[in-house]
């Protein structure tokens, strides 16, 4: 018998009724033998599998019938269940205040947890959309000064030739292409890739072929591969598109391949579209065959590679080390050795999202616990009034198990209602996130509410219902009949039941403290971020992206175009000034170069800065101030003396002051240049307090062909100038598309969007936690007061004043509150460290924030305790004694 047949037989055994098991199994075996002799093994195997399946069906049907039937023949499980559930719903309907409060509390908590779980699952846990994704790595080069650089082209060539551990290596760099008729130009989102790029990822073109080594030779490289979307959109899904020519950016290209649907770009934060962003068209990244210094010192190749199936990580690192040494020897002048480093692709894509998601997950869990404690408190409070009902049931014969089960089902029903709403909230939140969410959340498209997430929500719901329902249910059900039917339900404030509630309220306060402190820290960081001067002026400026195709514009033509375009746009109504720049602030631009300062000992270690290209008018257009010297002018042209601008950081670092740097001579890229002016620092990123040393070349004198950004300062609403600017550019060149026009405020805002979202989420959690904790304290105090009503009545009769009563109540609340706050501070000291990477200008243990939150929580607790206390003191002695007696 094969294994699967043995398994089927086991299933038949299990699902057969116990009393008939022997002859059932015997019959199956006998029948199997008969069939095997007559029809062969295959038919016999099918027969026994069929019997197993039928056995399961019969078994399930019988159990279901029994469960629905009550009485001696059935166990009545299902029918009791349905009955209890219906009863629970009726009870809940009768106390709408309690039900709605509990339901919404649970809905918010379960919804938040579900949404965050789906984010954690989508971003961190689910595998990348490539075959065998754990074998994919990104390769970087590093030196002692730079830990994480793209590769230099010649290095990439050598690594590709010499490394043994990889089934394939490929490099990729952004390369947009322009298509379309004059008057309707379109800029296509493009990537340049080396041969075999798609093979490394695990894709195969649907039509045609991948790029080959022969394509990488200049002259052969006018080939493109279309994305599926572009093929449908621009080429009508034409099956004969392979081999056709298409005019792109003024050059003629041949189409050699079309990709299937669902191709996901690897992505990079440097000179590339991000992971998962759409790419329209792919062209060839030429890998130089010769060796020039520029090909070793210019690091701009993003590299992805696929490990061979049998190679271990350690073996690969050794291979990288050895090959790296061999490559480093080829550097003509070796300042410091470059090594190669591999990072798993997933780690590179997910990046810093992990810590943020973990922090959010912790916050959501805390809120869920808080919510459960609150609902438990509500249930316990409600339970006090149900003593009689339970007593009657017990007297009529309901067992403790039966009673407990019924009460638990009430909890489950409550949790299910809350959970259902919560899941709906999570759906909505995730849909909103996909549509309006920050674009720099990695793998945003993988965040969905799928079966796994729903399963998690279900587990969270059931776990919560047990968490908040078990204790009240057990307590209520175990109360003896006589006790619960007693006339006065007077329990002493020090009873174990009440002590537990107070302890829980303290726990709630502690959790709330942690969440509110976290929100406070994030809030202060955010405020500091947006109030610190960015160094430029985002409001009142419009930007757009312009790329002059190399085939139609050489260096001189480009320079002339930018000058003419800037002048034309400057003259438009509403525009104050206009300029072109290589990059906008806070977009992750990071191109660096070394330089030498004339008159100083040769120090090529550490004299480096970020370089930009700008046209005159940049300062006024972007709102960056001039600190010393002069701005660029239209006189700074090709044959005029070479000048640069530097920023304050550079001036401070290499000269003592801004003024001292004016007139200094530096050697950059083989030419001597004079520092003509010093401009203000622009913060590297919103959450960096510092600026990086930077140099600014005038485009007219020095430029590398690249996409440029238009910045135009307006004295009207920036968006209103878009069409006039587009029109002006069209007049200059009808084939040139204007890409992505948007206000500078949008660019600046996008950089902060993820942090803003995190702040918002933690803030919501914090407020929710505070409200829940306050309600929790109020509930405990109210119950304590109502139970001590008799005692207060006696005291008042004996001469106690209202103030005395209030003081009594407060003193019992103080212990609880202090314990909660101390626990909260201790917990916060440990957990706010998780936020450290998100904080700006504020430490994780900031004393001011901690103290303010402590005061806030203590005050809230005081208010929560005061209200019941005041009510207690208002009741006259006679009333109190009367109330107590009639309970």
């Amino acid at each position, binding site marked *: 018998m094969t294994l699967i047949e043995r398994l089927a037989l086991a299933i*038949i055994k299990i*699902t*057969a*009724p116990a*009393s*008939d098991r*022997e*002859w*059932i*199994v*015997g*019959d*199956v*075996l*006998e*029948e199997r*033998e008969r069939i095997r002799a007559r029809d062969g093994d295959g038919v016999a195997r099918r027969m026994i599998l*069929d*019997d197993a399946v*039928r*056995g399961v*069906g*019969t*078994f399930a049907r*019988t159990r279901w019938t029994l469960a629905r*039937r*009550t*009485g*001696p*023949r059935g166990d*009545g499980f299902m029918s009791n269940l349905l009955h209890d559930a219906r009863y629970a719903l009726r009870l809940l309907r009768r106390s709408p205040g309690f039900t709605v409060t509990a339901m919404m509390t649970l809905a918010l908590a379960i919804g938040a947890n579900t949404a965050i779980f789906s984010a954690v699952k989508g971003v961190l846990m689910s595998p990348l959309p490539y075959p065998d994704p754990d074998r994919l790595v990104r390769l970087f080069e590093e030196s002692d000064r730079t830990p994480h650089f793209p590769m230099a082209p010649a290095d990439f060539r050598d690594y590709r030739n010499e490394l043994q551990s990889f089934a394939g290596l490929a490099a990729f760099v952004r390369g947009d292409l322009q298509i379309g008729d004059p008057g309707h130009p379109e800029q296509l989102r493009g990537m340049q890739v080396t041969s075999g790029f798609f093979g490394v990822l695990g894709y195969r073109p649907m039509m045609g072929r991948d790029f080959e080594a022969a394509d990488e030779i200049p002259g052969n490289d006018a080939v493109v591969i279309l994305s599926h979307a572009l093929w449908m959109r621009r080429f009508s899904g034409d099956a004969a598109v392979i081999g056709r020519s298409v005019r792109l950016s003024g050059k003629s290209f041949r189409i050699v391949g079309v990709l299937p649907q669902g191709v996901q770009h690897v992505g990079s934060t440097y000179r590339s579209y991000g992971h998962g962003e759409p790419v329209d068209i792919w062209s060839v990244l030429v890998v130089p065959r010769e060796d020039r210094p520029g090909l070793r010192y210019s690091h701009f190749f993003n590299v992805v590679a696929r490990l061979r199936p049998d190679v271990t990580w350690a073996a690969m690192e050794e291979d990288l080390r050895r090959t790296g040494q061999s490559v480093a020897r080829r550097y003509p002048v070796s300042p410091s050795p470059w090594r190669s480093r591999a990072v798993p692709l997933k780690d590179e894509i997910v990046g810093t999202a992990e810590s943020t998601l973990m922090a959010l997950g912790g916050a959501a869990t805390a809120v869920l616990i808080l919510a459960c404690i609150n609902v438990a408190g509500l249930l316990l409070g409600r339970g006090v009034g149900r003593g009689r009902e339970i007593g009657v049931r017990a007297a*009529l*014969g309901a067992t403790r198990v039966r009673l407990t089960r019924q009460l638990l089902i009430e909890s489950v029903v409550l949790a299910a209602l809350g959970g259902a709403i919560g899941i709906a909230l999570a759906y909505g939140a995730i849909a909103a996130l996909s549509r309006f969410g920050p674009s720099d959340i990695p793998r945003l498209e993988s965040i969905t509410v799928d079966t796994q997430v729903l399963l998690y929500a279900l587990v969270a719901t059931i776990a919560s219902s047990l968490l908040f329902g078990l204790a009240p249910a057990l307590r209520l059900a175990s109360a003896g009949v006589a006790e619960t039917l007693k006339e006065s339900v007077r329990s002493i404030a020090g009873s174990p039941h009440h002590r537990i509630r107070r302890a829980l309220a303290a726990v709630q306060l502690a959790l709330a403290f942690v969440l509110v402190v976290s929100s406070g820290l994030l809030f202060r960081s955010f405020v500091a971020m947006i109030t610190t001067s960015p160094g430029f002026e985002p409001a009142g400026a419009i930007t757009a992206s312009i790329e002059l195709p190399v085939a139609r514009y050489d260096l001189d033509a480009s320079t002339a175009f930018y000058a003419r375009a800037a002048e034309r746009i400057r003259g438009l109504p509403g525009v104050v000034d206009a300029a072109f720049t290589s990059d906008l602030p806070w977009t992750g631009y990071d191109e660096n170069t070394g330089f030498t300062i004339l008159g100083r000992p040769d120090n090529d270690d550490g004299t480096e800065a970020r370089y930009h290209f700008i046209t005159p008018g940049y300062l006024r257009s972007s709102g960056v101030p001039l600190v010393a010297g002069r701005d660029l002018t239209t006189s700074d042209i090709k044959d005029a003396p070479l000048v640069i601008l530097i920023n304050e950081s550079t001036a401070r670092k290499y000269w003592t002051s801004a003024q001292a740097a004016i007139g200094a001579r530096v050697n950059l890229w083989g030419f001597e240049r004079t520092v003509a002016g010093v401009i203000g620092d622009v913060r590297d990123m919103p959450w960096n307090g510092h600026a990086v040393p930077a140099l600014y070349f005038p485009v007219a004198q020095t430029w590398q062909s690249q996409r440029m950004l238009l910045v135009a300062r307006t004295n009207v609403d920036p968006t209103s100038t878009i069409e006039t600017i587009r029109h002006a550019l069209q007049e200059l060149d009808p084939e040139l598309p204007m890409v992505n026009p948007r206000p500078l405020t949008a660019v600046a805002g996008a950089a902060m969007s993820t942090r803003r979202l995190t702040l918002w989420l933690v803030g919501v959690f914090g407020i929710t936690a505070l409200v829940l904790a306050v309600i929790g304290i109020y509930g405990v105090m109210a119950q304590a007061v109502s139970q001590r009503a008799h005692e207060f009545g006696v005291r008042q009769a004996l001469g106690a004043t209202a103030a005395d009563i209030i003081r009594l109540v407060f003193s019992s609340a103080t212990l609880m509150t202090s314990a909660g706050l101390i626990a909260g501070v201790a917990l916060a000291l440990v957990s706010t460290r998780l936020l450290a990477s998100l904080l700006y200008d504020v430490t994780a243990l900031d004393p001011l924030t901690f103290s303010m939150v402590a005061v806030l929580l203590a005050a809230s607790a005081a208010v929560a305790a005061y209200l019941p206390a005041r009510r207690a003191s208002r009741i006259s002695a006679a009333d109190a004694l009367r109330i107590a007696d009639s309970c």
Partner: protein
Amino acid sequence: MFHIVEHNAAMESTLGEFEQLVLIAVVRLDDGPYGATIRREIEERTKRRLSISAVYTTLDRLERKGFVRSWIGEPTPARGGRRRKHFALQPAGARALRAAYHAFGAMTAGLERRLKTL
């Protein structure tokens, strides 16, 4: 709320459809049929696949109603040493089957051709 009234086992003298098939098979196989042969008989004639557990459940029910009786047979090596449970018709079962047959015959009298070509 509480199920105080006992649920009595009804003294049914009518046969369900599947019970009829099983009883007829027992009549047909008059040499002490057991579960496997009964199932085989019904499957071959009606071209329906049956679950062996369902057959035994029905036989147990028929035995409880007094329509069949059972006895345990000898173990055989082909069944891995397990015994067989044989069944035989009881007079009460014969009566019930005859009543069902007559009722069916009375209802279908004269309709044979129409029923066959429905």
